[in-house]
């Protein structure tokens, strides 16, 4: 069975399937989901693949239940994931909050389509960026990775599982319909070349063990069900023992911890790709499928001697604020093409602090940018 979990070799598969393979290669053995276009293929792949590796696939009654089930499975000691798209992501928000509050590792793949509401079920969107960051009520830190190819769907899902284990919280793979349904070559490396973070076990005795640690920048070692630690896990504000304490003092510790573990480790979590940034005078900031078009545009411009650059966001969250702040002093403008009416563009504008102009190239959904449109926007500054 074990040899079937990492399908080492070259594959010609779509992004949705690659997300599923990334999960299984990471050790995911529990998937709960609900059919939704354009993410259904992740679930379909899992339904076929998990039984081969002795894992559990279950189709729940809705996305609320799917999210709740993967949290439960994670506390059962099994790496778990779900996949969805906008409407389902909205329904998951409640239990995403529970996952943040209870510091439960798991992965949520969101293959974005056009919204709001039912919107464009079969067509692309990138408008769940802010929902990923702020969608559940209250404060928490957020990690979201945006793949731009089926290969990255595999790689980033692996990375998402690792980050979820390290920082003990739900981590998002924020794909989009174009990448999810795009079929390309995906290379799955040999098992020994994959870096997989396994979940450890607490070493402390029961009487000394604290299931939550709000002091440092890192979470406590997780004690899952059946290890004898008798952990109480609650969505209520809780102290280091996991006991509910409804006071402002404990709220300060609890919430600052779940925000700061991401905020204070942001430099370790942030992943970007810099293309021609060193001497760039205009920088395109893009992510997901849009970054493929942006790369084409920037390469075309460079071949014509135009000093354009590309800052490709791999993690949208945490946002690379320091980098943008520095770049803003060097460049004339940031061009932000995205398939929404302004989400990442606002972050860019905020962090540029007026030092560079910010141009939002917005599409409401259903199609992708053309390279020549982006080139035109860049050329306005030359």
């Amino acid at each position, binding site marked *: 069975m074990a040899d079937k979990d990492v399908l080492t070799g070259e594959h010609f598969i779509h992004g949705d399937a690659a997300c599923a393979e990334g999960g299984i290669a990471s050790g995911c053995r529990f998937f709960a989901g609900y059919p939704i276009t354009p993410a259904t293929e992740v679930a379909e792949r899992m339904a076929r693949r998990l*039984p081969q590796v002795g894992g559990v696939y279950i189709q729940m009654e809705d996305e609320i239940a799917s999210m709740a089930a993967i949290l*439960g499975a994670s*506390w059962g000691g099994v790496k778990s994931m779900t996949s969805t798209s906008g409407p389902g992501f909205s329904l998951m928000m409640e239990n995403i909050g529970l996952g943040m509050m209870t510091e439960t590792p798991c992965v949520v793949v969101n293959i974005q389509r056009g919204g709001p509401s039912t919107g464009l079920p079969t067509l692309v969107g990138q408008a769940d960026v802010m929902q990923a960051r702020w969608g559940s009520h209250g404060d928490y830190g957020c990690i979201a990775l945006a793949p731009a190819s089926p290969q990255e769907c595999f790689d980033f899902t692996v990375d998402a599982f690792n980050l979820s284990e390290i920082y003990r919280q739900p981590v998002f793979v924020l794909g989009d319909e174009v990448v999810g349904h795009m079929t390309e070559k995906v290379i799955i490396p040999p098992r020994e070349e994959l870096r997989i973070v396994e979940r450890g076990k607490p070493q402390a005795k029961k009487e000394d063990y604290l299931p939550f640690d709000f002091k440092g920048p890192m979470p406590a070692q997780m004690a899952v*069900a059946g290890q004898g630690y008798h952990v109480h896990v609650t969505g209520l504000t809780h102290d280091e023992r996991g*006991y509910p304490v409804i006071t402002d003092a404990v709220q300060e510790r609890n919430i600052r911890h779940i925000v700061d573990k991401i905020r204070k480790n942001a430099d370790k979590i942030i992943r970007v790709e810099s293309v021609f940034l060193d001497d760039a005078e205009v920088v395109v900031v893009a992510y997901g499928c849009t970054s493929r078009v942006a790369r084409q545009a920037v390469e075309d411009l460079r071949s014509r001697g135009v000093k354009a650059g590309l800052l490709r966001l791999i993690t949208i969250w945490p946002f690379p604020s320091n980098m943008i702040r520095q770049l803003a002093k060097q460049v004339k403008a940031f061009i932000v093409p995205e398939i929404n009416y302004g989400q990442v563009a606002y972050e860019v504008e905020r962090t540029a602090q007026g030092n560079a102009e910010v141009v939002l190239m917005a599409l409401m959904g259903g199609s992708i940018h053309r390279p020549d449109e982006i080139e035109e926007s860049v050329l306005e500054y030359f």
Partner: protein
Amino acid sequence: MKVKLREIVPFDKEAEEKAIQKDHGLHPDDKYLKPGRIPHIWCPGCGLGVVLTSFIEGMRRKGLSVDQCAVVSGIGCTGRVAGYLDMDTYHTTHGRAIPFATGLALAKPDLHVTVFSGDGDLFAIGGNHMIHAARRNVNLKVLCVNNFNFGMTGGQVAPTTPLEARTSTTPLGNAEPGFNLPYLAHAAGAIYVARWTTFHPRQLVHSISESLGKKGFTFIEAIAPCPTGYGRPNKLGSGLEEMRYYREMSQIRNGADLRDTEIRLREKIIVGTFINTDRPDFMENYMGKVVARARAKGKGKEKGKAA
């Protein structure tokens, strides 16, 4: 931006341990309760204490240790049960105890997972999860404490509130009939269905113990007095008087026709063990059929390759 924060009040483990009452451990049930969690939050006269001790007694009778068990709760007065038990306990979101417990039970099939939650949590916001878990026959023991109202929020109408009953949101009487929970659980596929009141702790313990021995989805309704939320507007008196009411109105009828178990205001309440049957649970079907087929297929392929 500059961020100004208040000074943190650090966690003081020693002080917290000192605060645990000195007599914890003297009562035989204390080993089932998390140290430092009592006194509980429930009102005087509430039936939850009886159901909690019945659960502990049911576990003990079944010979299960706290290490073999986990409890998952939703939100509400009953939702707070999880926080008192000294085992792996999960206090989840409103209505979502069952899907959370589904994940837990499927990821760790050797664990005895009990969902301990209220009627509002399980049948209003969580109703859909309840019927689907029963249909799937997930190996979960659902213990539903029914006090006929949303108690935690101050006594609002619930899907179990009988027609004409008064609550803070049905001040002129409820225009809706309540769910007949055992009938619903049975129709959805539960393999064990019982109803008792907190006036029947011996029978309740027996049912809990019996259900813990079943493999599949079991459902026990425990009717509990709520003098604060339900008793007062319906003139049922104190907790004790509400217990007296349940004693007078209850009629034990094991194996009763579940069409007759609807609860109406000031009419008899049929209690008993209604359903006790068996069918393969989710994991038996999944491992025995789905995973077995995947394994057989895999072997076939390997053979094919070798040839």
